[in-house]
């Protein structure tokens, strides 16, 4: 483009803008031309009481309308698309704000007589009012449906809450009441075994041993169930918890039970998580207990505790080089009572990982399990949505 062309274009554009401004000023002059009219105050004979009454009332109405529309605008802004019929809220806001403006114009015209401008404002207000009035009746079914849906959702929420509460108290009571008979079976078997006067055959003694072993298994299962139900009912007390230090403590306890096994723990100096100390300890105890158990017979065992990011969420993981599991079973390992190994190989009741999952969920986090390439398993959990 040559310099001449550019100058011509600039000149053309300036002419258009100037023309538009001129037209706007012309319309404005006409709108605010009050030379032929008397200010409205004359109609009130400038009686101060009457003028004051109109000014006060119009001012109150006008300002209230501004506030109301401001509130509506704020609600839509804060809730975004979640507010139902948000466009209707906006139409309502427009209707109310133009109504307010007509009242403020009334005050202005007591002294200025800009009746054309005032009338035009009323026309705009009429447009907004008619639109709202025309649209609103067609929305009645939707509004009623929304109210019904809200009522239904509230009812469902209450039902769910009470069902949850019942379930909690059921699992707690069941676990407690189941414990008592098992404890007594064990105690009386104890007494029979210890009775020097009994003349039991070797076979009967073996059977009694089996009764005892089964009662013990049941007691452990109930204790694990009780732990799981406690996770649901516990009040969370979130704090900064060093799960690496927890892992070392738990690992030391596990080692003390089987000192002959060759297993090492690899963990960072510090690994801070924000969560309930009791529940996080339980989660780590279950994960390390599993890792310790499943590395049996695959020594030297190696258990690694660390942190990683998966889909942008920070997770703590426990990895082992133990027996592992088939990759296709990864989604099922967190189901309660789901066991991937025979009790002959590895003892357990299949509640440990289900409990870890509940602990993660209660903290707003999630769990993940994967079979490692080669051998072993990695189980990870997070304590916040990230």
């Amino acid at each position, binding site marked *: 483009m040559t310099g001449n062309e550019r100058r011509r274009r600039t000149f053309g554009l300036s002419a258009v803008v100037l023309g538009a401004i001129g037209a706007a000023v012309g319309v404005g002059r006409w709108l605010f031309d009050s030379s032929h009219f008397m200010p409205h105050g004359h109609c009130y004979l400038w009686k101060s009481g009457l003028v004051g009454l109109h000014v006060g009332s119009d001012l109150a109405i006008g300002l209230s309308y501004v506030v109301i529309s401001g509130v509506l605008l704020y609600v839509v802004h804060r809730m975004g698309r979640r507010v139902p019929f948000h466009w209707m809220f906006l139409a309502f806001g427009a209707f109310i704000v133009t109504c307010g403006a007509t009242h403020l114009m009334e005050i202005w015209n007591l002294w200025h007589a800009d009746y054309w401008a005032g009338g035009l404002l009323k026309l705009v207000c009429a447009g907004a009012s008619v639109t709202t009035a025309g649209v609103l009746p067609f929305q009645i079914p939707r509004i009623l449906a929304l109210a019904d849906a809200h009522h239904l959702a509230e009812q469902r929420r209450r039902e769910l809450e009470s069902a949850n509460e019942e379930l909690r108290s059921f699992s707690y009571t069941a676990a407690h009441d189941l414990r008592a008979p*098992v*404890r*007594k079976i064990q*105690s009386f078997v104890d007494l029979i075994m210890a009775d020097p006067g009994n003349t039991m055959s070797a076979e009967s003694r073996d059977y009694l041993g089996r009764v005892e072993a089964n009662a013990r298994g049941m007691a452990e299962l109930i204790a694990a169930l009780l732990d799981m139900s406690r996770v649901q009912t516990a009040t969370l007390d979130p704090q900064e918890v060093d799960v690496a230090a927890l892992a070392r403590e738990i690992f030391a306890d596990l080692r003390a039970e089987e000192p002959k096994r060759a297993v090492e723990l690899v963990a960072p100096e510090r690994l801070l998580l924000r969560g309930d100390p009791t529940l996080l300890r339980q989660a780590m105890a279950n994960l390390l207990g599993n890792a310790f158990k499943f590395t049996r017979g695959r020594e030297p065992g190696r258990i690694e505790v660390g942190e990683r990011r998966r889909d942008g969420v920070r997770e703590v993981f426990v990895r082992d080089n133990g027996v592992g599991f088939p990759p296709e079973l990864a989604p099922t390992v967190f189901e309660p009572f789901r066991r991937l190994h025979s009790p002959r190989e590895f003892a357990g009741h299949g509640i440990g990982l289900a409990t870890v999952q509940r602990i993660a969920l209660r903290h707003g986090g999630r769990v993940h399990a994967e079979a490692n390439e080669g051998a072993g398993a990695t189980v990870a959990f997070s304590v916040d949505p990230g």
Partner: protein
Amino acid sequence: MTGAARILLVEDDADDARLARLAFSGASAGCDLRICGDAEEALRLLESGGAALPDLVVLDLNLPGMQGHELLERLRADPRWAGLRVAVLSSSGEPSDRRRAAAAQGYFQKPDSFSGLVALVPLLLACGMDGAGAA
């Protein structure tokens, strides 16, 4: 406390009461064990007993009618039983149950085996000794 310790066991479960009787009978210093099946019976016995208060009340929490916690609160609220020592022996290990029984000299969870219960007897008896503070 000299000679056989006088112990009042409040326990509604007949099996548990029998196990406790067996376990306490093995105590070296001997025990004079009385068993009440519920809290009301224990209260009546204490009220009628006058001077011969037991050295220790061993209290189950889950009882028919008045609960163990409530009996403990009543005992602690009444000056007549100001010096009475109480040890809780419950199947519950819940922290909330432990907290509510803080006014007792001891809190023990019922062991899973008879040998566990026998091992617990000296600890229970210690709650009845002078110098055992409120746990």
